[in-house]
């Protein structure tokens, strides 16, 4: 009998939980369950050992500046392990603060720089005015291909993020990474970084399944995930598109 368990490390839920990240966990758990898999969630608290050897997937949520600073410091000793995991293709979902934390630094308006994990060549600078509101993007695959699928949610960030990786998608309505280049988020190997919460996964079941499939592949059990009844999720998704006036076929 095979072990049908996939393990998600939820990093620092006590600090990085600003935008209802347990919503993302809950979606991954139910969708894994529906395919006969058990999602084993390991909450990793600040100051405890992180053993990535038994982990198939990582969730890094958002927190306040102060909390991010704490987390950044705590993670620094494990930087090498994380870097190796990223290169090996481990799926990592990093939302808002977690997304910023993957990069080199987050520069406050005072000029002070909160150091990041320096896992990716990403920098973030705070600027006047927060970028707040509903957002819709067109999901563009890492190779630049798009089949027109959208991702929707809510964004609320003072940081403007810049990088040269593939974005998660093209902004249709909203601000995205920096409100300037019409790009939102980041994709690199298994990493998905994004400012979109709401939470992210409930209204974007295709993205949830994409992450889940990656986790199974990373675990060495690749599997084509069967379709679920997502009528409600898609209605909620399209309702946000409607609110934003985004027309899709």
């Amino acid at each position: 009998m095979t072990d049908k368990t996939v393990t998600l490390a939820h990093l620092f839920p006590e600090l990085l939980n600003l935008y209802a990240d347990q919503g993302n966990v809950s979606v991954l758990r139910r969708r894994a369950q529906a395919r006969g898999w058990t999602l084993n969630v390991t909450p990793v608290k600040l100051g405890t050992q992180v053993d990535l050897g038994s982990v198939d997937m990582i969730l890094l949520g958002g927190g306040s500046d102060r909390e991010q600073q704490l987390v950044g410091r705590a993670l620094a000793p494990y930087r090498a392990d994380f870097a190796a995991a990223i290169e090996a293709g481990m799926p990592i979902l990093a939302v808002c603060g977690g997304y910023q934390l993957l990069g080199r630094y987050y520069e406050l308006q005072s000029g002070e720089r909160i150091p990041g994990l320096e896992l990716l060549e990403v920098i973030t600078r705070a600027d006047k005015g927060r970028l707040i509101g509903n957002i819709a993007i067109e999901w563009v695959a890492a190779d630049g291909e798009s089949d027109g699928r959208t991702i929707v949610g809510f964004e609320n960030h003072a940081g403007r993020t810049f990088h040269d990786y593939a974005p998660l998608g093209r902004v249709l309505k909203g601000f995205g990474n920096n409100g300037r280049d019409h790009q939102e988020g980041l994709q690199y190997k298994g990493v998905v970084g994004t400012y979109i919460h709401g939470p992210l996964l409930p209204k974007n079941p295709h993205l949830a399944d994409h992450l889940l499939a990656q986790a199974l592949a990373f675990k060495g059990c690749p599997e084509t995930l069967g379709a679920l009844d997502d009528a409600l999720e898609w209605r909620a998704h399209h309702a946000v598109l409607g609110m934003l006036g985004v027309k899709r076929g």
Partner: protein
Amino acid sequence: MKRLRAQAALWIGWLVTILLRLVGRRGTSLPGLVASRVSPDLLFRLLSQLEQCVVVTGTNGKTTTSALLYSMLTDDEHPWLTNRGGANLLQGLLGALLPHVDGHGRLRVQRAVLEVDEATLPRITDHYHPTLIVVTNVVRDQLDRYGEVDGALALLRSGLQYPGTILLTNADDPLATSLGWERELTYYYGMEECPVDAAPRNEVRDGAFCLICGQELHYERYIYGQLGYYSCGNGHFDRPEPHYGGKTNSSFEVVIRERTNAGRQEEFAVQAGVLGLYNDYNVLAAAAAARLLGRSLRHIQAGAGRYEAPLGRMQLFPGSPDRILALIKNPTGANSVLRTLEADERDKVVCFAINDADADGRDVSWLWDIDLEWFVATARCQSYICAGTRALDMAVRLAYAGVDREAIRISGHLPDMLRMTSGLTVPVYVLSTYTALYPLGEELRGATR
């Protein structure tokens, strides 16, 4: 000299009231504040003119209890006055009296229900002795203000040391009960039947130790917090038999058994449009106080029926079905509303009206921080209806909390949502964010009329 100052204070108080009205502001504590600065004596001069005065104090439930009691007592023949909205310090009391004073400095209304802050009580009773003082409970609250619960208890005790005043307090609260020890003219109310905690929850129990020997109190049953059926193992004290015993089963009715001194017992039911065990205690306290003042059952029942809770505080809109409206605006508040729904063991339907206007919060992430999983698994909810601009977000939230998708219905408009519940035979709970609350309240009032 004191009289002149009091007269001057009165005029100044009026002047401020008139000026505030001219600029379109009412109900502030400013007139009372200014007048009490000019003459600290004025309040007591006015109070001494009252024929009857009830003071309601304690930690929780003061505002609701005094509003219920006011509603039970006042009528055209014998009007009462009250300080609404929790203005319960000295200047607030004066502010409530000022509008009822005539040109000769005499009160036109001779009866008052006054909500009074615990720390303010001794400052009043040093100069004036009310007819009746109600102490709702003594629990941990606002530690920074009173130091500790022992301090609050000492303040109340010093405010109650005058023998002519009747005391009515909570038999189920060991701390409040201790105020009546060896005191004449003391009456108790308490719950005799209510949904009870099977096991003590992980709560702070301030009163859980005997005030005489310090031993932990033994509880035969827990009600909530430190409230319950308690006794000291060394026999120092236990719960007194209440003169007014309440029975409640999480509906809108409290049945009260009155035990008069002659040994006669009488039972009567009081219905008020508020829900939850905390409110049942408030209804019981108010009805007991009204009875002690000799009010008839008919007046008490009618007054409780007239009482209108602020919109969204779990009030009942009777009809077929009964609908109950509650405001939810953050996970903590939503969780406490859900706890009250869990206590209602009847089958039920729950509606969510979720908007995302600025006043509601444009980000609806918070829906995922509500502890819905527990609610869905334990509450006997037949189906859910979602409405509002974010109805679908709520629907998805419910689906992932474990609700069968067949049992979730979506309604675009708020009136439609209510229409979908008409004719149901089970109670309907309507949980609403801020901007949906007022339209829903209007609809529900219209439907009740």
